[in-house]
């Protein structure tokens, strides 16, 4: 349709990039199956025979049932514990299931397959099981979806040994990381910010993988490191842009994998800049942001010119009202005000 040449990057939406990764991997690996609610939709409706009604509640899996059939694009009843556990059982016996948890807020309905079963299975069995399993889910506020459909819980999953957690930020990183996850013999949670689905970016048509566990230095800088997770990349870039006016050179690092996060890249950066701000949309306590701050504050203690700042959501559920929700999500303005001392010092240094 768009460019067809190999190696050619087309402009795709975040959701289409995910869709393409799924389709390409499924063509090559028949063990990959998708399970979830309304991934196709309309199952059993005569006039929709062979066609999905929806292709996912947000349209991400559109067209896949048409190509791969109902045995591989499996619409489930509303039974998260059942199908997530089934995904673990199928993975342990040689499939590569890709269950979709429509909103990560529904984790409370299907945590055991991840916490109690899948993440521990290989360890409990003394290495005698492999779990090729990619859990797709969504997180994030900004869609006026209120407290039960807007949370950011990748940190809760990242706390569990035996689970890798990836948070893409762009169509390009989404496709590359998802293809990598679909080749992993381990549980990877792939958490998509629902407000990014319509965002666009260049994406090569052929398959490529981005290494899980590797952060990307999106913009090099010398004075300050900003580490971002998922959509917060754009907040980080905005802050960097604003600081540029004061002559401050900001290194912006897109974390991409929140477990295991890339200590090497972060350490290298702080050794250069001596200052770090982490932007994480999750609630503050026991967050990935705080985890990084604790570790980097320790291992790079001698390089720190200022305390590491973590900018996050407040310690509250997500409010509905749009004006409150806007205050809830970390913004460039919030970053500048929460890190005001650090920035003031930097500015002063530059002026001096």
């Amino acid at each position, binding site marked *: 349709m768009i460019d067809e040449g190999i190696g050619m990057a087309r402009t795709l939406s975040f959701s289409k990039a995910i869709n393409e990764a799924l389709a390409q991997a499924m063509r090559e690996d028949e063990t990959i199956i998708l399970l979830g609610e309304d991934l196709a939709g*309309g199952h059993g*409706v005569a006039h929709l025979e062979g066609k999905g009604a929806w292709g996912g509640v947000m349209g991400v899996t559109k067209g896949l049932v048409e190509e791969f059939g109902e045995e591989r694009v499996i*619409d489930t*009843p509303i039974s998260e514990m059942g199908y997530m556990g089934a995904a673990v059982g199928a993975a342990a016996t040689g499939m590569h299931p890709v269950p979709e948890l429509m909103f990560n807020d529904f984790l409370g309905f299907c945590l055991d397959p991840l916490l109690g079963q899948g993440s521990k299975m290989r360890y409990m069995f003394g290495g005698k099981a492999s779990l090729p399993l990619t859990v797709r889910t969504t997180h994030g506020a900004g869609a*006026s979806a209120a407290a*039960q459909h807007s949370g950011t819980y990748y940190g809760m999953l990242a706390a569990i040994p035996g689970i890798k957690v990836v948070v893409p930020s762009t169509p390009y990183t989404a496709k590359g990381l998802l293809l990598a996850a679909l080749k992993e013999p381990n549980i990877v949670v792939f958490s998509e910010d629902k407000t990014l689905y319509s965002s666009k970016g260049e994406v090569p048509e052929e398959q490529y993988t981005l290494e899980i566990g590797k952060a990307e230095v999106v913009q090099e800088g010398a004075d300050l490191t900003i580490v971002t997770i998922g959509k917060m990349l754009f907040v980080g870039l905005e802050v960097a842009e604003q600081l540029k006016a004061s002559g401050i050179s900001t290194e912006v690092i897109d974390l991409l994998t929140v477990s295991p996060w890339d200590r090497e890249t972060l350490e290298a950066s702080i050794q250069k800049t001596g200052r770090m701000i982490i932007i994480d949309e999750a609630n503050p306590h026991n967050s990935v942001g705080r985890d990084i701050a604790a570790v980097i504050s320790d291992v790079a203690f001698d390089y720190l010119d200022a305390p590491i700042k973590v900018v996050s959501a407040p310690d509250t559920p997500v409010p509905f009202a749009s004006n409150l929700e806007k205050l809830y999500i970390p913004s460039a303005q919030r970053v500048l005000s929460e890190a005001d001392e650090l920035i003031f010092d930097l500015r002063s240094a530059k002026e001096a």
Partner: protein
Amino acid sequence: MTSAMTDNVPATATGCAIPPESAKRIYARMNDIRNFENKVRECFAKGEIPGFVHLYAGEEAVAVPICEQLTDSDQITSTHRGHGHCVAKGCELNGMMAEIYGRATGLCKGKGGSMHIADVSKGMLGANGMVGGGLPLAVGAALRNRNLKTGDITVCFFGDGAANEGTFHESLNLASIWKLPVVFVCENNGFGEATPQRYASASPTIAERASAYNMPGAQVDGKSVVDVYTTVGEAIERARNGEGPSLIECHTYRMYGHFEGDEQTYKAKEGDEKAFADKDCIPLFKEYAVKHGLFSQHDADEIEEASIERVEEALRFAQESPLPSADSLFEDVFS
């Protein structure tokens, strides 16, 4: 309970158990729900209302005649499709509309929105965005009723889709072994999102699952106010008399999509499903009520007009209400 409780065909009305005063209130609330929903739909389309909005329109004959038989201290639990339950349980339209608009004057100060409207003082324990999330809550409320011997009962509304969640199983089992005063009302509108119930549920009906929990189960035509009133009324009676829980499956249909924006390609364009879809419970009830002398055509006209006015007023109230203050972001986490 009548044999309708275990019968496979929807029960038919055999007389009228509804007192005239109740009938009027029922008709008024059904109109309130429909008008309220149509207004929400209109304002959502205009972009005035953000987020996910799941409309109850078309299902009024379920919630309203049931809640008519409850007191303010009886409780209900609800679903993501909760506007109808709220109105039926007596929540104020002004506060509801303001909530959906995210205003400080909303029933939840604008912090809950459509999916979380609640008024605990009215026994409305909240619309609930978690499918199947309300069932255990209802068991807990009923446990409270049992332990404190208040005589209150609990009605638990949930969808056909929710009946495939583990919470359905655990909750019905708990309610049964503890003989709790609770009525489980399954609103079977044929779909969970875009997925037909006949695909998602191994059992043809939800009602027949009752036997797995050793409780009475019944199906009823959820478009018939009288059938719902009568059959659920018996279950409410059972609960009040300490005879334990029941499961009633009300067959109904959504007038609109799963949420606003849904193209509804999965709905039938002809046949039985379409015929059932086209039955509108509101004129059906009016016709019945006028014929049986529960109220007059003139009463109906007045009720309809007053309802439209209430909804207009609710919209004005919402639109003119202030946004929540920035500070309120941090409030109400703990008591």
